[in-house]
């Protein structure tokens, strides 16, 4: 019986091993829990899952195994439908709207949504259905969002309380969901951990020899701190215009980065980097910083992160005079390349949803300029990006 359960967990991409399955069987054998599903849930979770970011996946697998997904239904009764409709329409892109009308309108959509839910969960990554993948699409996210369509098993006939695993209270800890300050910090710490390796002291041999000699042959040990390889970070934030939609997530990233790094410098730009960037957005015209100065001030060992949606007219990158704010003698791509060739490692983080990238040719252009090192601004994207930075 537990083998099937184990396989179900693996299907839901909960990383658990045979060793842990054996542990679980031993727990049952020792009668730590006995014939109580709630206790079993808790104990099996403690034994099989080792990170709270997998709790949500575990909950879904558990619900699937013990109830079967056939009972998952949408509880739409509490929400006025018109409101829902409007809310959805606001959140959908044009492409999606077209697809919805092709599917027979919102009513039909709701039905299919229920059917597709399970399908989508199984194909958590890489799915190409319109519900969206990874829980980050407006539709998909809404589908799981407590404020939107609530998905959960509710046995209305018996007025039974919702089971713990159906509450899915660890949803926020799943690392595919959108970024939060705490999540960002954890992701950023991957950068920091390399800065911290070998924090202990080492023997300073030369010093020890001369100190011992001076000490008339009596041993005098000298230690010196091991060299730290502190990460230095240079960040460029796109501000204004289309970035207004992404202020919140950028703010979170900003505050998380701020507390994590000792060597951190940041600049702002608008849409694309041209000859100037600026440090204070209020004084962008009075105190611009020359890109050449940036290049000369900061060594090539600084890691560079651009944060921007790269959503603009393609000419803003590729043509002289393309900037919407001033006449630029050289195209933005030239300035970008100057920065990129000076610094060893750089990435671009894009708060736009990844599946929308293909609709904007400017994103394509920018992506090729940064040698494909463009990542979505989610925890997963950040993690990948940081890997590329190291």
């Amino acid at each position, binding site marked *: 019986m537990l083998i099937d359960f184990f396989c179900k967990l693996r299907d839901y991409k909960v990383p658990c091993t045979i060793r842990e399955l054996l542990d679980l069987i031993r727990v049952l054998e020792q009668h730590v829990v006995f014939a109580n599903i709630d206790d079993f849930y808790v104990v099996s979770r403690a034994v099989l899952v*080792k990170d709270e970011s997998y709790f949500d996946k575990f909950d879904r697998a558990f619900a699937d195994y013990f109830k079967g997904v056939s009972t998952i239904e949408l509880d739409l009764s509490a929400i006025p439908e018109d409101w829902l409709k409007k809310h959805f329409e606001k959140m959908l892109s044009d492409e999606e709207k077209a697809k919805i009308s092709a599917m027979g309108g919102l009513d039909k959509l709701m039905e299919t949504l229920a059917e597709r839910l399970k399908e989508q969960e199984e194909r958590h990554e890489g799915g190409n259905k319109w519900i969206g993948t990874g829980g980050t699409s407006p539709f998909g996210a809404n589908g799981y969002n407590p404020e939107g369509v609530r998905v959960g098993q509710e046995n209305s006939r018996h007025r039974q309380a919702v089971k713990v695993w159906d509450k899915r209270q660890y949803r926020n800890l799943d690392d595919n969901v959108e970024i939060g300050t705490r999540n960002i910090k954890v992701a950023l710490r991957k950068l920091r951990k390399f800065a911290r390796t070998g924090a202990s002291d080492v023997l300073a041999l030369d010093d020890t020899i001369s100190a011992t000699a001076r000490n008339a042959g009596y041993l005098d040990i000298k230690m010196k701190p091991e060299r730290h390889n502190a990460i230095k970070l240079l960040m460029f934030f796109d501000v204004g215009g289309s970035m207004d939609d992404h202020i919140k997530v950028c703010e979170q990233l900003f505050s998380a980065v701020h507390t994590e790094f000792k060597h951190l410098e940041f600049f702002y730009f608008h849409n694309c980097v041209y000859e100037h960037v600026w440090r204070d957005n209020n004084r962008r015209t009075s105190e611009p910083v020359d890109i050449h100065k940036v290049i000369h001030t900061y060594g090539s060992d600084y890691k560079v992160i651009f944060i921007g949606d790269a959503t603009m007219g393609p000419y803003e990158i590729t043509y002289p005079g393309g900037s919407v704010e001033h006449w630029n003698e050289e195209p933005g791509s030239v300035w970008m390349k100057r920065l990129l060739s000076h610094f060893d490692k750089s990435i671009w983080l894009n708060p736009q949803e990844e599946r929308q990238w293909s609709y904007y040719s400017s994103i394509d252009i920018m992506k090729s300029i940064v040698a494909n090192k463009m990542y979505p601004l989610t925890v997963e994207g950040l993690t990948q990006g940081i890997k590329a930075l190291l």
Partner: protein
Amino acid sequence: MKSFNGTGNYIASKALQLAVNAAITLERPLLIKGEPGTGKTMLAEELALSLGTELIPWHIKSTTKAQQGLYEYDAVSRLRDSQLGDEKVHDISNYIVKGKLWHAFTADQRPVLLIDEIDKADIEFPNDLLLELDKMEFFVYETQEKVVAKQRPIIIITSNNEKELPDAFLRRCFFHYISFPEAEEMKAIVDVHFPNIKQKLLDEALALFFDLREIPGLKKKPSTSELIDWLKLLLAEDIDIDVLQETRTKKVIPPLHGALLKNEQDVHLFEKLAFMHRSHR
């Protein structure tokens, strides 16, 4: 072995009790994560107390090495002693300093070993302890002696999630995430700390506290330990219930908020919200 049901000072959720008991029964280390201030370290202390056994705390710092938990060979003092012609020098075991793990392995009664904040250490730290935690034995090269655990200690490991722990290490542990207590549980926790607190005062204070946690954008949400500090202050200052009630309905800054909000920006944010609320009325 007795099972753990929380203590007079510590309310453990059912899930936590089960996880602890499973770890005790199967002799596996238990990894505890959770928001700061939810009582991760306290669990080990209270567990030792309720089992009536010794607690061996090992607090991890960024400079801690796994070897220090086993033993350290103090070569420097041996060299010094040799220069001074001390008799001790001839026995190397005089210079072996026992670590926390050694103490835990050789304790007479099955002790509770707390490895506190394991994520603070170097990334290799957990990997270096794999075999020792698995087999509960290690080898002292200097004296050619094998230290084997008399009985497997109960090991509680806490982490604040600053680093990801290696997979091989995780597979050997049980895991529990202390989620933030619900209002009911919170009441029980407060009751344990302040048995004579006035019910109405507590209700108001708790409501205020949970409201505060709901404010979006707080850098550090107040947690259990902050609540308890705050209540302590409220009682010491003898704050009136009406003041709390007023605070809640009118959305003004709660009295003694310094105990709840530890971050300057959070206080600013809260003041701003309170101000906006007032100007709206």
